[in-house]
């Protein structure tokens, strides 16, 4: 146990757990209502104490408590990332399994579609689609989920092709299992490792995409907090209120860094050949 979990990975897991707890417990942990404005308290410095409350991370341009907004922003960030990764994981894996199992024309059609999707830079496709559809939490999740599935399809397709030829699959087929049962019960569990590695790296990317779209004004809409939209507002006050940029950005950076490190660790465990690469 101790040999598998180095102190580094324990620290990363603890940090990730802290982010998840902050997001889940935003209601309990927030010292103030993240939407309550107070024009008397605009752009106060971190640690500013009014008669009734202390603003540990300062306030924004509308006098809202930055710490509370960052906590709720963590919720938006993790929720969007988790849901959109789930959408793309399901869609991408299903298409990859189908292509790998049926091969022939099914595979040609699906994999050509994958190539095409991969030739549009994802952030641009997301920007265009979100702009056409208009803002909204569910729309954001669907757009991110439906632009980022092709990587799963590639991995699932290659893995299915490899597994499908193995004797135990032939045995299951001869025992009378249908395609659905074989794919679900026998192939999927065997290709889950590499898919999880892709999902982790995509999770970090989705967090960045959500923040980026919100920064551009296309993601989570005001007054609801997202790290991206806090920074977008902060950019206008960058000379007067550095905290609006530094704190949410630091959270974003540390979270993505932890996700990426966790992804590397997971990849090394799933595929020992990649170790140290």
């Amino acid at each position: 146990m101790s040999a598998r979990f180095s102190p580094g990975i324990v620290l990363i897991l603890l940090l990730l757990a802290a982010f998840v707890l902050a997001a889940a417990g935003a209601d309990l942990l927030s010292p103030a209502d993240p939407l309550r404005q107070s024009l008397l308290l605009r752009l106060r410095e971190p640690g500013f104490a009014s008669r009734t409350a202390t603003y540990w991370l300062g306030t924004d341009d509308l006098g809202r408590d930055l710490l509370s907004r960052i906590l709720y922003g963590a919720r938006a960030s993790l929720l969007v990332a988790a849901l959109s990764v789930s959408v793309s994981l399901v869609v991408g894996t299903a298409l990859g399994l189908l292509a790998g199992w049926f091969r022939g024309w099914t595979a040609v059609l699906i994999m050509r579609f994958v190539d095409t999707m991969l030739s549009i830079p994802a952030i641009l496709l997301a920007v265009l689609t979100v702009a056409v559809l208009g803002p909204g939490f569910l729309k954001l999740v669907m757009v991110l989920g439906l632009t980022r599935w092709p990587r799963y399809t590639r991995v699932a397709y290659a893995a299915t092709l490899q597994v499908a030829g193995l004797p135990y699959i032939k045995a299951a087929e001869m025992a009378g299992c249908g395609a659905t049962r074989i794919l679900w019960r026998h192939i999927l569990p065997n290709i889950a490792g590499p898919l999880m590695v892709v999902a982790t790296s995509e999770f970090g990317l989705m967090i960045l995409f959500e923040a980026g779209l919100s920064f551009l004004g296309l993601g989570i809409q005001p007054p609801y907090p997202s790290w991206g939209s806090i920074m977008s507002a902060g950019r206008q006050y960058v000379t007067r209120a550095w905290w609006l940029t530094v704190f949410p950005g630091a959270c974003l950076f540390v979270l993505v860094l932890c996700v990426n490190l966790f992804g590397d660790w997971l990849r090394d465990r799933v595929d020992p050949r990649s170790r140290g690469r």
Partner: protein
Amino acid sequence: MIRHLAGRLGQALVASFGVLTIVFFVMRLSGDPTLLLVPEGATAEQIAALRHALGFDRPLFVQYLSYLADLARLDLGESLVQRSGVAGIVAERIPYTVELAAGALVVALGIGIPAGVAMAVWRGGMVERLLAGFVLTGQSLPTFWSGILLILLFGVHLRWLPTSGADGLSSLVMPAIALGALTMSTFARMTRIAVLDELSRDYVSAARARGLSLGAAVARHVLRNAAIPVVTIAALEVGNLLAGAVIVETVFAWPGIGQLAIQSIAARDFLIVQTVVLFVSVVYIGMNLLADIAYAVIDPRIRLDR
């Protein structure tokens, strides 16, 4: 080699056609594309008249064919907000984005490749660990955050560099660094792997046995062979840099196609957004093709049609 390249060209054409199709359908996801093109405050009659004039009341399939026909004639339409050709509006901004992407590529190659070589040569030591942290940082930094931090430090605090706009080389430095950081990490990682692969080959041992120093072996033999995968990635990264420009240009008020796209969304001028997406995607596909050709030219195993 001809057959190999013809196949790749065919793939590129299919992908381009696919991109056009996807963009066509995305533009119609909202139900009525007319609403994406009218300026704010248009009356219902104006919208109806425009819908008819643009042919959006025809069957979808007919619209699709006429869209393809227009694009085949390189007719990208007219901006109803700016009352001028979309192609011209976008073309005006392209040099700025190219300048930014080139700057970012210089940053990425200039730092990424030496860092990758150093990580491979001094594997397992302090140098590798330090550089690995540096690379990981570059990989996880959101461009809009690093961009604003750079502005805060070098623009506002130290006053060394202009905080925004495109005015000479000094204004290019910060956006190029912000945009190039991620690509720099990619180059460093790929170079490290490529050099490590080459270092374990027999010819390196042979060269060392003949008395060549490690540095000389790397400089004379390893780098040349390790360049092949790196060149391929460089071509692909150009596409990513163009896409990443959307955010970086917004942060630095850099007047390229990325900023144009975001401004056009706010102005409800979607033909411009569509054109930017099509342009970047086609460049991306083109760079992929170039990478394939470069690969074939560099690597005799492909050139000889193995």
